[in-house]
């Protein structure tokens, strides 16, 4: 007898400590391992112009020691215990996570509580980490072909919203960061009432709750309001078009349409629409642009769900001899066809199956389940949504997809950017 996906659910309990720290416990004793996953509700959108990249640089500094832990001690303690760890920063949030052998759960809690309580600040480690982050920017973006394609897109698609600069920030801003900035950022955002802690894996719930209280319960929220950006993007009135030269062999097209925030009613239908456009080799854009016309090497579409309104992003790279303009023409031709003729019931069913499968795929490890739980808790303010995701996918009707297509796949809602090889006379 097989499980049916409709039975699949992630069981959890949740509560708040008196200081506001949100706690989620998800037990799964398949293996004696445990995931500790801590989200702070702060990301690059909390930065201000002139301080871009700071939330991410700060995340690096969180590994440079805390009250009772020496620089790099977080890595040392966890790795010596046989665990893995890391952190990551995105537009809306910063997360820190350890996967540990189950009998070292308390170590993970001790480490996270220690750096929530107080950092260890030192000019020399800041100088080193500014260099490390500068090299990270070069390694992942500036020195990679097409590496800056998303920041070039976002800086044009958004006029006001704090998503218009990249999480990694600019090298000039990173270089200007000071210890005072680090201190102030910790005081503003790294506090219990701005955090959500998920423990997932092999543990006893009562014991875990006791340990959380013991390690985090007396951390005090500092005075002062947290800065929350409120700049909403005005509705786009005209299509935005531009081009950028890069050291690349083949042209690329990137285009985006404004869509509502992650927790909006339309979001699931938009994900289905995105899936129908280009998820898998049998999707519309792949079939047309890659397979039939042989104009593109690859195509992709994804709905970027963010706390403030996000983007539906389409990207394609040309085959040799084909131009970005041809890619654009084919893309909008397929959009027009979809708007004119609609989608079939079979396509809808396929997209639902694929979304369901990718949701299940994501739930494979305790660490990724912990991260999913925190995502629903922090960004959608409702952890239980995690178990309504598959029913929500199943509930989307043809009309919903047609409606969101008409609403968002419009020319004036689009930003169109060509990424082009330098012409010979302009090569740097």
């Amino acid at each position, binding site marked *: 007898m097989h499980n049916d996906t409709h039975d699949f659910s992630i069981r959890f309990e949740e509560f708040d400590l008196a200081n506001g720290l949100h706690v989620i416990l998800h037990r799964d004793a398949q293996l004696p391992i445990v995931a500790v996953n801590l989200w702070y509700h702060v990301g690059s959108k909390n930065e201000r112009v002139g301080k871009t990249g700071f939330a991410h640089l700060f995340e690096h500094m969180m590994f440079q020691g805390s009250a009772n832990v020496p620089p790099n001690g977080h890595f040392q303690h966890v*790795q010596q215990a046989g665990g893995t760890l890391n952190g990551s920063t995105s537009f809306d949030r910063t997360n820190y996570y350890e996967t540990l052998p189950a009998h070292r759960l308390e170590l993970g809690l001790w480490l996270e509580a220690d750096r929530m309580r107080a950092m260890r600040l030192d000019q020399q480690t800041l100088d080193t980490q500014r260099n490390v982050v500068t090299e990270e920017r070069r390694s992942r973006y500036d020195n990679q072909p097409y590496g800056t394609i998303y920041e070039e897109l976002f800086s044009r698609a958004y006029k006001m919203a704090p998503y218009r600069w990249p999480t990694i920030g600019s090298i000039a801003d990173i270089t200007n960061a000071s210890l005072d900035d680090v201190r102030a950022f910790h005081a503003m955002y790294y506090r219990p009432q701005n955090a959500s802690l998920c423990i997932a894996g092999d543990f006893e719930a009562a014991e875990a709750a006791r340990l959380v209280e013991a390690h985090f319960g007396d951390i005090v929220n500092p005075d002062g309001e947290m800065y929350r950006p409120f700049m909403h993007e005005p509705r786009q009135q005209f299509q935005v078009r531009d081009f950028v030269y890069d050291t690349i062999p083949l042209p690329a097209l990137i285009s985006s349409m404004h869509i509502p925030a992650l927790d909006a009613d339309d979001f699931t239908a938009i994900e289905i629409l995105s899936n129908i456009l280009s998820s898998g080799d049998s999707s519309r854009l792949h079939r047309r642009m890659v397979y039939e016309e042989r104009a593109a090497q690859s195509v992709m579409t994804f709905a970027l769900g963010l706390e403030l309104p996000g983007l539906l992003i389409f990207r394609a790279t040309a085959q040799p001899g084909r131009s970005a303009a041809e890619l654009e023409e084919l893309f909008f031709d397929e959009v027009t066809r979809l708007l004119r003729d609609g989608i079939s019931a079979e396509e809808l069913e396929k997209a639902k199956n694929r979304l369901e499968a990718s949701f299940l795929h994501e739930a494979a490890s305790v660490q990724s389940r912990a991260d999913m739980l925190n995502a629903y808790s922090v960004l959608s303010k409702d952890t239980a949504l995690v178990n309504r995701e598959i029913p929500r996918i199943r509930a989307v009707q043809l009309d919903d997809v047609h409606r969101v297509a008409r609403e968002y796949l419009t020319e004036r809602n689009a930003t169109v950017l060509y990424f082009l090889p330098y012409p010979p006379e302009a090569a740097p």
Partner: protein
Amino acid sequence: MTTPAPAFPDRTTPPAPGVPKDVSFPDYFEDVLSNGMKVIVYERNDLPMVTVSLVARGGAFHDGASYGLASMMTELLTKGTPTRTAVQIVEDIESLGGSIGANAGWDSMNAGVTILSRNLEKAMDVLAEVARMPSFPAEELERAREQRLAHILQRKASPNALASIQFSRAVYGSHPYAHPLEGTEESIRALTGDLFAEHHRRLFSPNNTFLLAVGDIAPRAMMDMAERLFGDWQPVASAWPAIAAPHDDARRMVHVVDRPNAVQSAIIVGHIGIERKSPDYITATLMNTLFGGYFGSRLNLNLREARGYTYGAHSRFDARIHAGPFSAGADVRNEVTDAAIEEIILEIERIRSTPVGDEELANVKSYVTGNFPIQIETPLQVAQRIISLELFGLEKTYYNTYNSRVMAVTAADIQAAAQSHLHTDRLKIVAAGRGALLRDTLVRFGAVEVYSPDGDLIPTVETTPDTP
């Protein structure tokens, strides 16, 4: 009623560990079909998904002069059979919420589906068809060839791909590992449908493949399905010409791939490493973890945390059927390229000449052994390890004795492994970055050869114009 105040622990020292639980590598089912083909099942019902892989022994290692043959052949498996077109194959699987794909490595090839378990039976029909009866349609070959040539063109813009290709070339000379497994422009243009059909006939047979299913599927049900779909597949006798083991060129080489606008250098240094079956494998890989295999490794702490040269420095033994490479690398800013290489060389000298301290050794052992259960958490992680056991002919108990063998390694063993498997005199030093700068700064390590992204040697005499 008042709640007692919670007892806050001593926060100045890390909490003591609880009681560890034993973890063993999961048991799995093995049997053979009536034609002798092996079937392996690892059943796990926590998610309603199944992944089934048909794994064939032999890969790019057997490409001969047709570099990219195995890789292109496997890519084309899913592009047509006598009864289904490429479009139908992908539609049939994707409409069920699944994915299908095939790829080749150096030592094996793999065709697989991942599917919601309720749809497994239909997906298995497609998998059996593409594995047994690919038709390599001419039109699909041309399409795949175009795609591959574009990919090869794109590779020339990637600093890491350029460094890696040049590194393999410098290390392996005329051995098959010298060439990119995706092929070169020339070799891809020369591939024909006949080559694929012949290569497929020799490698995809019940006696050279096994079927591995992981996830929400019972062993008996899988055996019945496999017998129905593969039971009548006829064995094929196939012999391969012996390929001589690679040997290191004893010289040090310094190769630069010129990217005039680079803002960083992609560095790879190394030489021939070890075979997967080497008796030194566990000691050598433990030594490597300590040297450059994890965040707390010497290389990373030196190049990243102490000096801020790079976002990360790593090293690895890529152990294959023949000795794959040992390589150490990092992306570093242009002006510290030579200093970073110098540090890597000094670290090699240090691990060869000085025994590792007790604490450092205990830490790395604790990391590797403690991490073992985390490495076998998901069905796909377990599948990857089962495939290694099968391909390299390791004992079925291998992973259950792994931790005790790691714990038995001594500081003297680590030093001996470093002395046998790391060598500064024969290093192949490769950097993709600004040719003009690197030609001057890397000369301290030996005569510098500068190559274009196309792989052509650029003459050492700069042809500078007479007038400014």
